């Protein structure tokens, strides 16, 4: 019988891949034992969905064998006498294929395919090796509930927990192992797609491929958060119980009591968190659960998915990203997604605030919530994972690349790969054919996810054959079966659940359809016309677009707007873009497309051994970048302090640490709790060894698992805005303009909404203090003069953590405060509402005592706080500006989240204005034509 835990795990995986069906039924189902993989992959395009049905999935060993066969076939037809590949030759699949399936391809296409096949085979072999390394990874899954007990008996009863056990427990390697795999897979496929859909909705004109790249990588945050919040909330309890207390429970020596306490806390935390979830399930839900546990879990995950969708569609993105470049947009989406997942979903869902309540909140307060999330995303600590083992690193790589590959084939590895095949594979790998095929080449599979659903659906009856979307559900199931094995869950359970899930398909279908579209080869004969706006319009037979052409078009800023009923793809572009296209200048406009950083002047600094060169990014191509990377080149920007220094790659070699691409290392100082970004060339090996002795984690910026160091500006290193600020500051400081640097720092800090007067903000702390002092004075003056509003005496009660005060009407009120601070409380509307301002930080909270407790506090956003700070110090046309502003803030938040408030002075008259992203589309609107004032 399936246990709940099995079900939970399966559902988790199902959720992770929602909207994310990465392979076709054909790919999964028709790959029968003994048939050639590639034949099946090729022949699927001529079939329709109704003709396809699941048969058996290919197994790992079979896949590896077939890969070798295909390589051999390829070698026979595509290699010249010197063993080099001649891509101009024709390639024919000549074995047992019926005439209707017979296809002739060129060797270049075949090479591309084999590249992926070889890669996956490599990964499968590697994965088998991982299995060997961690044969009893029982922590991976709660499914092994029973076996866990056996594992934990490894330490004989009554004996102290061995140091090895303690370390194993402390590191929790399998937790990471299990979390990362689906996270990466989902991030590069389903969740990414989901976000892309949300993203593209409000960001016309942004090259969509760029976004896809950003979002795909960044969506990992979201998935990680989602896993963290949801997985643990629903499944983690039993697991923790077994892994926590049981691990060392009665074996803890007194000297290691902390270990028990740590485990105890975790168990208390989980039971406390989960009991809230139980507490808020009504009778119907419990009955539903008892009646159909699988159905209940599906429902739960559907709720989460819907909720994520809600959040990503509420408009936060449109507003926040209005004036950001594509990279920034991607980053923002990532951050918002990550925060939504980990802090909103994880927290609220677990704590049983409930989907219904959340949905209401999102609907009503979407923009506001978005704002909070956006702000939180910049200030809250990043999700942390403990150090990873070699096996985990391997597993991550396996899944990451597999996720990209998954559009081509799915492999189930219910059986291990035999040693014979591993041996054969290793022999094959050392041969010329493999080396020739595996020369670096970019995968095109992921590049093309950018069509809208409508456009794709219109393309189906046309000339483009969309094969990868068929049978998605089943294929999804098969893939899960594969992943489940890694995670220790029952493959059959996962596949069954998935095949019946039927949720979230559309996003994936859209994405995969487009991915397929981009792979359709053939010559393009574009018909060119003009639309009413003077844009060039190209009508291209959809089936004739090569992936390279499509990628180039997109990089060039061409938007693929629709597909006509006769299967033609309509591409629109400006005249300039068209000229660029015509002149062939379209290859590399966007650095993110190439995966290289870009300097402010559009150049990139390339370091190759002792050579340092600077090139305009637009002159580079993917092929060149790939080649350079392959040759060991690193890319940086000229703004980077180390840009023109030639790195000595061997400098810290003796320490075994890996220096990042920009010559940096990141050290987590466990003694101070800080993370430092250091120039590796300035660090002595002895220092590194000292840190290593102390157990400090040392890594570099390329390791996504590590927290980025937080700069003095309060934002993680690597954020675009921080780069800009840092560059400005550096420049000014270098030129001796310290004061100006301070101002800029201050502005940036304000912009980032991380005012922390206690920090030394590049020497600007005094300026910050002055400004805050001035605000305080203005406010005091203001409070004396406003009718119906007055400052109240406040008293902080540290025991209760409450800020207590009395309203003008004599009504006792209290506001929960985390710590004692310098607060000003202003009440109005006869004490029904209060504005609480933290003088030091400038943070403002609005407490509405007329609302239910859970929703009575509103923390103002950065902009609104500034507005309120300003307004609290002014009387406008005899009226208390803060009240007017507050009302307008609230109205504005509900009506038009894109607008921002400003208080301006014109001809001696003060006005509150709504300013709508001036740098994007300049407009300023006076609220109510000034009547409100």
């Amino acid at each position, binding site marked *: 019988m399936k*246990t*709940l*835990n099995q079900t939970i795990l399966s559902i988790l995986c199902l959720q992770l891949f929602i909207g994310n069906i990465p392979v076709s039924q054909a790919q999964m189902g028709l790959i029968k034992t003994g048939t050639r993989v590639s034949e099946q992959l090729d022949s699927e395009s001529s079939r329709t969905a109704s003709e396809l049905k699941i048969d058996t999935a290919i197994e790992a060993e079979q896949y590896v064998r077939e890969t070798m066969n295909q390589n051999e076939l390829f070698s026979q037809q595509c290699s010249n006498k010197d063993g080099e590949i001649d891509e101009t030759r024709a390639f024919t699949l000549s074995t047992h294929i019926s005439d209707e399936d017979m296809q002739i391809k060129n060797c270049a296409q075949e090479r591309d395919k084999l590249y992926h096949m070889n890669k996956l085979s490599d990964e499968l072999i590697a994965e088998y090796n991982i299995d060997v390394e961690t044969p009893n990874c029982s922590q991976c899954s709660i499914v092994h509930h029973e076996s866990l007990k056996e594992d*934990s008996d490894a330490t004989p*009863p*009554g004996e102290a927990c061995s140091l090895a056990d303690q370390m194993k427990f402390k590191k929790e390697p399998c937790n990471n192992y299990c979390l990362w795999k689906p996270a990466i897979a989902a991030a590069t496929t389903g969740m990414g797609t989901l976000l892309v859909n949300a993203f593209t909705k409000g960001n016309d004109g942004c090259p969509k491929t760029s976004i896809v790249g950003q979002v795909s990588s960044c969506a990992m945050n979201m998935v990680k958060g989602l896993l963290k919040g949801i997985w643990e*909330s*629903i*499944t*983690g*309890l*039993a697991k923790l*119980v*077994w892994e*926590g*207390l*049981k*691990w060392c*429970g*009665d074996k*803890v020596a*007194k000297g290691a*009591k902390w270990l*028990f*306490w740590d485990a*105890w*806390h975790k*168990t*208390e*935390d*989980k*039971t*406390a*968190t*989960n*009991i*809230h*979830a*139980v*507490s*808020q*399930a*009504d*009778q119907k839900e*419990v*009955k539903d*659960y*008892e009646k159909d*546990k699988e159905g209940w879990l599906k429902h739960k995950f559907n709720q989460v998915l819907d909720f994520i969708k809600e959040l990503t569609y509420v408009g936060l993105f449109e507003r926040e990203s209005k004036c950001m470049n594509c990279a920034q947009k991607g980053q923002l989406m990532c951050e918002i997604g990550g925060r939504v997942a980990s802090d909103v979903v994880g*927290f609220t869902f677990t*704590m*049983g*605030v*409930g989907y219904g309540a959340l949905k209401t909140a999102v609907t009503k307060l979407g923009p506001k919530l978005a704002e909070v999330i956006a702000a939180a995303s910049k200030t809250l600590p990043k999700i942390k994972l403990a150090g990873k083992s070699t096996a985990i690193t391997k597993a991550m790589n396996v899944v990451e690349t597999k996720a990209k590959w998954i559009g081509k084939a799915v492999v189930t590895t219910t059986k291990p790969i035999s040693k014979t095949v591993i041996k054969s594979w290793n022999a094959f790998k050392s041969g010329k054919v493999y080396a020739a095929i595996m020369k670096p080449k970019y995968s095109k599979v992921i590049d093309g996810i950018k069509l809208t659903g409508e456009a794709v659906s219109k393309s189906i009856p046309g000339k483009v054959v969309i094969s990868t979307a068929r049978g998605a559900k089943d294929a999804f199931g098969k893939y899960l079966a594969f992943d489940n094995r890694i995670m220790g869950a029952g493959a059959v359970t996962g596949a069954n659940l998935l095949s019946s899930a039927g949720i979230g398909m559309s996003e994936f279908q859209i994405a995969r359809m487009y991915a397929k579209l981009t792979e359709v080869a053939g010559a393009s004969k574009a018909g060119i016309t003009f639309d009413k706006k003077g844009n060039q319009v190209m009508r291209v037979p959809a089936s004739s677009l090569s992936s390279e052409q499509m990628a180039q078009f997109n990089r060039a800023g061409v938007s693929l707007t629709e597909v006509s009923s006769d299967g033609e793809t309509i591409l629109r572009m400006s005249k300039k873009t068209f000229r660029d296209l015509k002149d062939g200048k379209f290859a590399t406009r966007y650095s993110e497309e190439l995966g290289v950083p870009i300097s402010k002047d559009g150049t990139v600094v390339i370091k190759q051994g002792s050579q340092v060169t600077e090139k305009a990014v637009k002159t580079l191509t993917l092929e060149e970048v790939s080649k350079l990377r392959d040759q060991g080149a690193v890319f940086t920007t000229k703004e980077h302090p180390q840009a023109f220094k030639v790195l000595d790659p061997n400098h810290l070699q003796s320490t075994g640490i890996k220096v990042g691409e920009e010559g940096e290392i990141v050290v987590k100082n466990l003694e101070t709790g800080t993370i430092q970004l250091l120039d590796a060339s300035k660090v002595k090996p002895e220092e590194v060894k000292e840190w290593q002795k102390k157990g400090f984690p040392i890594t570099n910026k390329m390791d996504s698992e590590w927290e980025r160091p937080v700069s003095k500006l309060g934002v993680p290193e690597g954020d675009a805005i921080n780069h800009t600020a840092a560059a400005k500051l550096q420049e000014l400081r270098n030129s001796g303009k310290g004061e100006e640097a301070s101002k800029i720092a201050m502005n940036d800090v304000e912009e980032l909404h991380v005012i922390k007067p206690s920090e030394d903000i590049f020497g600007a702390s005094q300026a910050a203090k002055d400004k805050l002092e001035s605000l305080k004075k203005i406010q005091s003056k203001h409070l004396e003069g406003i009718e119906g509003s007055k400052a109240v005496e406040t008293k902080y009660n540290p025991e*209760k*953590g409450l800020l207590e005060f009395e309203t003008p009407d004599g009504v006792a009120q209290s506001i*929960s405060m985390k710590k004692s601070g310098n607060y000003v409380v202003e009440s109005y509307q006869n004490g029904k509402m209060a504005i609480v301002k933290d003088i030091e930080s400038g943070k403002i909270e609005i407490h509405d005592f007329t609302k239910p*407790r*859970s929703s009575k506090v509103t923390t103002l956003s950065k902009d609104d706080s500034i507005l309120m700070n300003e307004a609290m110090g002014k009387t406008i046309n005899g009226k208390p500006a803060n009240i007017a502003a507050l009302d307008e803030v609230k109205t504005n938040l509900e009506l038009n989240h894109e607008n921002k408030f400003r208080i301006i002075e014109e001809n001696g008259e003060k006005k509150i204005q709504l300013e709508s992203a001036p740098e994007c589309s300049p407009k300023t609107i006076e609220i109510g034509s000034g009547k409100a004032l």
Partner: protein
Amino acid sequence: MKKFVLWTATIILTSSALAHASVKNFTVGDDQFTINVPNGWQTPKDFYGFPVSLIGPDNKEGHRTVIGITPSGAADTDKVFDQGDKDIKSYMSGREAWLEKFEGKSISYDSYQKTKWTGIEEAHTLGYHYELPTGKFYERSIFVLCNGRRLYHLKSITHSEYEKTDNKIVDETIKTLKCEKTVASATKPATK
């Protein structure tokens, strides 16, 4: 004698909040238990990770009273609660950290209690009142020793609005928990 016992039991039951309770048998970990489930309470298995949970009726606040039972994995109570104040402080610091994470705050902590009742030879109880953005709650953790070997974790939660009525039911219900003798427990020596 039997009649007297029956009569006494009837009197006790009818005068308590569990007058209409039904007896539920269940297995958690390696042990079998019985508990009296109050009338109208639900007892889903493996709900949100709790092998067994007893959930009170729906209420206006949307926060039902719950008792969850999980195996702790630990087996030796002496070592678990052998450091007196230090253990208690550890519990408190853990709860404070949890509350901070969820933007809550503690209101008061119960003092640690070591008790026993028929069928449970040892029970260690800790509890506290706290406030979250969603309301005020009373939560208790009771570690009961079963068959002299294994420690089980009972956790209860009650919304403040229902403390007066439900805490009594929770108390009485928990005290009906009995750890049955198992074959395993009869054959395996305790680890103490």
